[in-house]
């Protein structure tokens, strides 16, 4: 099928062709075939013209996480106002909620085992210290306050704290030691 016939078929039906065009067409194909080609081409282009993608599809696609949100049309004169407002909000939040510069409290407990036999353990707390580290941003050494932990004398962490001895050691009283070791019914 030559291109001239095809372009004729796109434009007009067989009856609308002039004599020379009809001759050209008839040399190639019967009039009915030309007419069916014309009818097909004319109809094909007009088909489905009012068909559109489902409306929900657009909104779904625009919510895709890889798409950046559209830039808002804020006027230029509004920008300094917005910046000032954000600064004011920041200052207010600092004033009402001061920055936490202290770490959570640390507790240290030193105990001494008084007695232990099998599952029986008797312990006594010797020292319980609790401190919180606070960072002071001052360079002046006069105002420097050492952390509480530094103020606690190192000697208190020594487990061999001299204790006033009263009574006798359990090791010196075998009867008492045996008593702890006896079954419940025989005590």
């Amino acid at each position, binding site marked *: *099928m030559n291109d001239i016939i095809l372009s004729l078929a796109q434009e007009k039906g067989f009856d609308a062709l002039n004599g020379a065009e009809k001759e050209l067409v008839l040399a190639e194909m019967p009039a*009915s*075939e030309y*007419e*069916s*080609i014309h*009818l*097909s*081409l004319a*109809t*094909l*282009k007009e*088909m*489905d013209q*009012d*068909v*559109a*993608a*489902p409306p929900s*599809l*657009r909104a*779904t*696609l*625009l919510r*895709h996480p*890889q*798409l*950046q*949100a*559209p*830039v808002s049309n804020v006027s230029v004169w509004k920008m300094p106002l917005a910046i000032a407002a954000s600064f004011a909000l920041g200052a207010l939040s600092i004033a009402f909620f001061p920055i936490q510069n202290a770490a959570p409290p640390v507790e240290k407990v030193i105990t001494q085992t008084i007695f232990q036999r099998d599952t029986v353990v008797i312990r006594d707390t010797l020292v319980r210290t609790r401190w919180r580290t606070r960072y002071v941003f001052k360079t002046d050494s006069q105002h420097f306050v050492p952390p509480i932990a530094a103020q606690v004398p190192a000697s208190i962490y020594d487990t061999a704290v001299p204790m006033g001895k009263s009574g006798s050691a359990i090791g010196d009283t075998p009867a008492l030691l045996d008593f702890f070791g006896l079954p419940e019914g025989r005590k």
Partner: protein
Amino acid sequence: MQVSDEALMQAIIDRRDAQAFAALYDRWSARMYRYFLRMMNRQAAKAADLTQDLFVKIIEKPHLFDPSRRFSTWLYTLAANQCKNEYRRKKLIEQVEHYPECCGDDAALQLPETLDRALLEQQLQWAICLLEEPQRQCFVLRWQEDLSIKEISEIMDCPEGTVKSRLYYALRQVSAAVRDVFVV
């Protein structure tokens, strides 16, 4: 002045611009949906899915766009490959066995004004459904999407002569189906 498709695509590549994407979608969605509808035997749900996949691909892989090519050619190439994959996956052609299945079910399909016109369109749709996949691609792209032979050869990655011959056989087949019913 209207921003070109290629410039909008560049904005999507550079900064995933939602406005640029929305503009491209508004220009091309109806056309691509129609194309899928024609290629997928008038199955509206399938056409909507493929349209969505196509535009998701634009969002997720915009770097695949070659700025030296026309946007429309690239878009149709993606769409044609989707159809090819779909045919391969479901062997759609085998389903086109009888008339009612291929000729439209969908609410999206509006009935023309006259019964003759409706019958003619149905006959044409049926004839297109019966075309083999490469012929149908060529036929729909040329006579319904109005692309040039050169563009079709780029999209289908085949010589222009092959496109012309496919078009010739497809047109003969479709017009024969119409002639049997309408032309006395």
